[in-house]
């Protein structure tokens, strides 16, 4: 009779028993025992003090309010999340303070966005960036935003009307293609590289229909010099920055044509920006070439945009408009903030490493005076579905329509 060999049996037994001694069971946490952090914010407790404590605020999702067909959607209210705050000498200590107040295990792996208050950002956010990169629980794809002239805790306390969790609204806005999404990984790369980082600004806004109810919007560009905030780009400058970076996927531009009554709206179809750097007599020169393709979607003028002459007018106005915005942005970055958020330092490092090594110590002064050439090419792909203008022709018009 065959018997199961003792060695084989003991091997199988040990394989079966070994998992029980592994640390796996100790790490197990049921999903309903987690405090799932959806968004976090960081402020200074005493902004004017140089040794201020860090104030961390987190939005913890309330799953019981968020799931199930019977549960009414908590969108637009604070029912969907719980706000918890804690203080500490750094980010970790502040998180630890929150964990002490929370019955469930603090869980950062699903943190969609991190908002830094303006004061905290001006103080420097390297500690926060380091925590996000170093802590295995945190994920580096967390979007990073700077609170525009306010505290992060204020932003985190605002619910959003369309989404159950405000963090979901932030993610959707970041991925809409109308703004520049910046996550912690990209910020860290810019911060530790030859250039300077930037983030989008997030600002509270009063609702139009419900006067006492806040919502938020993502606008403006926060300009950093390495890890601390140095200022903001205006809306016009921010728009130019988006064109310079060439990562816009959606945009709508309304323009006036000189000497023509009414306005024309164009939607962006294609945006392609090429930045090239050259070194002339030891000094770098940046050239930015932007190619835009637009569709006309609204014609408030009496012009017929099936005529090439008329679409040419729109094309030239858009070119001029975009170029002006880009120049305004470049001027602010070069003259006002001294911050190379354009990535020109990285371009120089990549294409002219020897030149970069020479001018790296005085890069800020070089950047400030670096000549930048801006060229914008625009094409109008379609003049819309309707040929002739809808606007009635005025018999006393003081302008002459062009004939193709």
């Amino acid at each position: 009779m065959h018997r199961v060999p003792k060695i084989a049996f003991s091997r199988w037994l040990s394989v079966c028993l070994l998992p029980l001694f592994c640390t796996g069971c100790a790490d197990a946490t049921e999903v309903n025992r987690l405090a799932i952090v959806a968004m976090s914010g960081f402020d200074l407790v005493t902004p004017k003090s140089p040794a201020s404590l860090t104030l961390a605020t987190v939005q913890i999702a309330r799953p019981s309010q968020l799931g199930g067909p019977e549960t009414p959607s908590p969108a637009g209210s604070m029912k969907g999340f719980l706000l918890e705050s804690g203080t500490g000498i750094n980010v970790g200590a502040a998180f630890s303070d929150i964990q002490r107040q929370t019955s469930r295990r603090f869980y950062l792996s699903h943190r969609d966005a991190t908002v830094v208050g303006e004061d905290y950002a001006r103080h420097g956010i390297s500690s926060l960036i380091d925590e996000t990169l170093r802590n295995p629980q945190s994920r580096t794809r967390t979007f990073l935003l700077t609170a525009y002239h306010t505290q992060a805790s204020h932003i985190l306390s605002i619910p959003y009307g369309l989404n159950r969790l405000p963090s979901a609204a932030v993610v959707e806005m970041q991925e809409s293609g109308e703004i520049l999404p910046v996550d912690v990984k990209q910020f860290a790369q810019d911060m530790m590289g030859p250039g300077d980082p930037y983030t989008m600004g997030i600002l509270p806004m009063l609702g139009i229909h419900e006067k006492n109810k806040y919502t938020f919007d993502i606008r403006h560009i926060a300009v950093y010099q390495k890890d601390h905030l140095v200022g903001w780009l205006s809306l016009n400058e921010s728009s130019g920055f988006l064109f310079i970076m060439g990562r816009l996927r959606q945009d709508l531009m309304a323009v006036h044509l000189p000497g023509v009554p009414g306005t024309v709206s164009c939607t962006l179809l294609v945006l392609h920006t090429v930045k090239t750097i050259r070194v002339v007599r030891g000094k770098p020169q940046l050239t930015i070439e932007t190619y835009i393709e637009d569709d006309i979607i609204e014609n408030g003028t009496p012009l017929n945009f099936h005529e090439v002459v008329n679409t040419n007018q729109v094309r030239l106005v858009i070119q001029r408009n975009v170029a002006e915005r880009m120049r305004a942005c470049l001027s602010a970055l070069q003259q006002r903030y001294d911050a190379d958020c354009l990535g020109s330092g990285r371009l120089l490092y990549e294409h002219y490493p020897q030149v970069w090594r020479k001018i790296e110590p005085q890069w800020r002064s070089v950047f400030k005076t670096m000549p930048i050439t801006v060229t914008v090419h625009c094409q109008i792909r379609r003049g819309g579905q309707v040929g002739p203008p809808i606007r009635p022709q005025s018999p006393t018009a003081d302008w002459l329509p062009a004939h193709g």
Partner: protein
Amino acid sequence: MNSQQNKPATDEAPPTPGPTYCALPLYQELEDTLASLKKAFVNCSDVIYRPFCLFDNRAACLLYLQGGDSHSVDADILAPLTMKPAGHDAGPLSLDDIQRTYIHIADATRRTTLQDIVSDVMAFRVVLLIAFEREALSLNAMKYPQRAIAEPETESVIRGPHAGFTEDLDTNVVQVRRKLHTPDLKIEYMELGSYSHTKVAILYLEGVVNPNLVTEVRERLGRIQIDGILESGYIEELIEDTPYSPFPQIQNTERPDVVASLLLEGRFALLIDGTPLALMAPINLWGAMASPEDYYERFFITNLLRWIRYLFLFVALFLPSIYIAVTTFNQEVLPTNLLLSIAAARENTPFPALVEAFSMEITFEALREAGVRLPKTVGQAVSIVGALVIGQAAVQAGIISAPMVIVVSVTGIASFCIPRFNFAISIRLLRFPMMILAGTLGAFGIFMGSLVILAHLCALRSFGSPYLMPLAPFSASGLKDTVVRVPWWAMRSRPYQTSKINIARQPQSTTPKQRLPRPSRQNNQGGA
């Protein structure tokens, strides 16, 4: 104590039936022969002795088992042997004359020993004993009731033959023979089981099968010395390569077309009397995932269905463990919204995911078992009640979370997608250790378990043929019928591992290029 003392020594010779009869020759006197046979058949009330007087005035007796249709006995044996033919005035007839002239039954053989007679009577044959003859005639004259040929319920197809095997070996052999009209289809009979004397037929296609494989089958079957073979499962467990493997190494089927197709690939089949299931080997993993219809339908839909089956094979084995791992250890892999939905569903459940999954899976298996064991109408009612209890009441009571019900349901459906029932059983079985590994070690445990299964599959053999062939060891030509099934015109060779001696299945004459006449050539010929 007594039971231990009475326990027979297992290493000794196998038990044999009592020596109530032996290989003695027949007696000269019919009464003596009948007395010996009655001794052998003592208390066997179903043995019928039908004495009669032969038309040459000799005493004779028919022996057979009751319960069959005796019309042929009356018409083809008794009538010609009792009615004296006109012009017969000679003395006693010889047994040869009786067999050739007066008995109208083709299947007639001579028997010389009592043991042969006893065996034949037990094999439902009619034995004719005649006074003063040292030989008896064994006749196949009785028809015993048997099930009609029907479509196998476990392997039904939409396109393809609907005939299935029955419990009668001869009928089953005929069904295979009708698929392969060639003398190369060899059928060897064996008798297994010292009490059951179960007839087993080994079928193979000479010239295609590896002769060493047939020798190996004969040897393995020859080693069987068991008291009875009542079903194919007895033989399967007694001859498979790795008895401790959860995976089946011998395929069973109720379909003659499946047997014929595997014989054409150089495999052998065993048909066993008393069971509608044929055994076939060697097999591989890909064969376990193939349905007979795969080869009858067009290859586009076949491939789609195969991929769905492989997807659901993965689901059947891993879905509960993945659910346990991601809800207990690796929550970061889930999208945030899904995590929140699962967390919301599990907010009020009292048990950990592992316990929840285990209880649900065991309940599901119990439901399935109850559904199979009970009559069909009651079985359906049990399934409906079970589904309501598990799906609705348990969730509403907050004992089980809704996602777990979905996981268990999808897993259950997935296990039904596996065409071979015995392979699906293995997957169902392996699901439980995988769940324990996932509950203790998370994703790491799942990977560890998967590696063990993969290593085992790589080492597994079915009658010496690798279980993962043609993937491991790799054979590019064999890949034509694994995860994908190429069209029939592209399957020009048989599987290498089982048909080394005759690899060619068909020439290139039916490939798309060869199939249609070439217009250019025709035009040229016409012009010339």
